[in-house]
């Protein structure tokens, strides 16, 4: 159980706004790690810092012990963090297969000259890309949509395509930004099963989610943010009982535990 992703006192300010302040956490290999918090708590900003879209104002981010704080998103992705987006960023006008094939970019090396002369490397790469993307599509249960334009699929399926595309990069850690947003309850349950199955196959996952049932049922460890600060970290049971978390979600003085259990 080595550590995969570790942050040390990460801060991100926008002018006077402290969107993320002094957040430290460690995600260990094989975990599903959840980040929760009320709207505007800085969850997505924190994600953006981890994946390199924003640079941290202060603090450090380590991937497998390597400092990635000031690297660019594409380099970080190459090193093993692949993310999905809250507002899906699918290649809408490409088929699902083409989407996933671009995900295979990381595992291949052939350049323009290989393509022109159809060298051995090109052939190996293309063979690998085709096999890998079909495999990934099958793993995500999208085989029947493989040749469909991604933008014309139902919402829940699109989310799944985005996850499949991220999986094709063979990431050390998969970052999911509100994967269940906008899904109906059925789709959410399917998604949860899918995420848990991925995890059983050894995939480390870090996710942001609003759906409490989803988070409480599938995460091993949870980090709670409020106003950019970490207010609690621990197993679902610990988090549920934490008075500060209850205060953040329901205001102080209310009995939140019951509601949390039902939610």
């Amino acid at each position, binding site marked *: 159980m080595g550590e995969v992703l570790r942050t040390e006192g990460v801060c991100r300010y926008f002018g006077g706004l402290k969107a993320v302040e002094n957040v430290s956490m460690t995600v260990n290999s094989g975990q599903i790690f959840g980040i929760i918090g009320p709207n505007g708590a800085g969850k997505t900003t924190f994600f953006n810092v981890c*994946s390199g*879209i924003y640079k941290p104002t202060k603090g450090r981010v380590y991937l497998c012990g390597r400092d990635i704080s000031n690297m*660019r*998103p*594409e*380099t970080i*992705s*190459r090193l093993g963090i*692949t*993310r999905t*987006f809250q507002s899906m*960023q*699918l*290649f*809408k*006008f*490409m*088929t699902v*297969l*083409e989407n996933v*094939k*671009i*995900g295979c*970019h*990381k595992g*291949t090396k*052939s*350049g*323009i000259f*290989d*393509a*022109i002369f*159809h060298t051995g490397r*090109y052939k190996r*790469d*293309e063979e690998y*890309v085709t096999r890998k993307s079909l495999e990934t599509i099958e793993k995500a249960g999208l085989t029947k949509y493989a*040749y*469909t*334009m991604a*933008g*014309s699929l139902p919402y829940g399926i699109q989310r799944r395509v985005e996850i499949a*595309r*991220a999986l094709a*990069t063979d990431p050390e850690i998969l970052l999911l930004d509100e994967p269940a947003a906008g899904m109906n309850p059925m789709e959410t349950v399917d998604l949860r099963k899918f995420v848990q199955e991925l995890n059983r196959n050894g995939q480390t996952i870090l996710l942001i989610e609003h759906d409490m049932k989803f988070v409480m049922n599938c995460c091993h460890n949870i980090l709670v943010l409020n106003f950019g600060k970490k207010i609690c970290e621990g197993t679902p049971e610990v988090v549920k009982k934490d008075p500060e978390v209850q205060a953040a979600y329901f205001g102080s003085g209310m009995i939140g535990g019951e509601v949390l259990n039902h939610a």
Partner: protein
Amino acid sequence: MNTLINAVKKVYGEHKVLFLAVIVVLLLILPFLGFKKSTIRIMCRILMYCTLAGSLNMINGYSGQTCIGQAGFFCIGAYTMAILSTRFGISFWILLPLGGIMAMLVGLIVSIPTLRLKGIYLSIITMGASEVIRIVALNWESLTGGSFGIKDIPRPSAGGFLVDSPMKFYYLFLILAVIFLFISSRVIRSRAGRAWMSIREDELAAKALSVQTSYYKASNFMYGAFWAGICGAAYAPYLQYIDSTVFSLDEGFNILSMVIIGGQGTLAGPIVGSALVNFLTEILRPVGTWRFVTYALLIIIMMWLRPQGLVGASDSILAGGRIKMKSKSKKAAKESA
């Protein structure tokens, strides 16, 4: 119009090999059908612009960067050929790739400041670069002959066989166009081509999937510039005389209009566009400036009715963001994959 185009596409899809064979044979015997010399000259232009518009299409259509100054790269290629062949008598066959490489280097220089910038900055910089190249060509008299241009650019020859008539140039341009299409069709089906298209569709997502967008944007730009340079290098000996007025911004817009009218992001688009625009140029030659008015109207009408161009697919990001709720049939998808 849509149904007609779709019908043509369908028939083409079903008999692809037969179609290509017929077209190649037709193109090969075309000059022998007893056309006038002026008609063959038009065919030469069409074939040359196939490659030139195609090179711009590689940039605009495949990686979604809006380049307007393709005439600049064209200019670099042509002047490389003209200067080195008249001064030092270097062989055409060495200068042809060299013209491409020179244009490619300029393409690299132009793309560097725009790597951190989005779309429109690139357009303006390419446009400005094209103008600067033209201004330098006009004013650097000791090298380029200034407004007098360069005369008597030698015709290419291969082992005693001199390429001197329009008919022989026809075959030269045909070979170039075929090589360009062959190589480009291989490139866009490769890893690099997919990376370019991912940048066109969504740059942020491409970054998150570890596509080094700067590298691929620059390489895409260089690829397009390379072919424009080759075109210039092949076109200079055909004209035998070049000066800076050939490479004005209007020429850039002319190339752009071919790509737009034909259809960006498709290999066939620039070919159709080049044929149509050059055909119109000839028909409208008697009416002088009205010709450009017609182009301009055509571009505007095209943007209103078919922003994806004549052969462009209606379900593409270039068609104006409307997603058609239909799925490709498996067969068609396999062929395009």
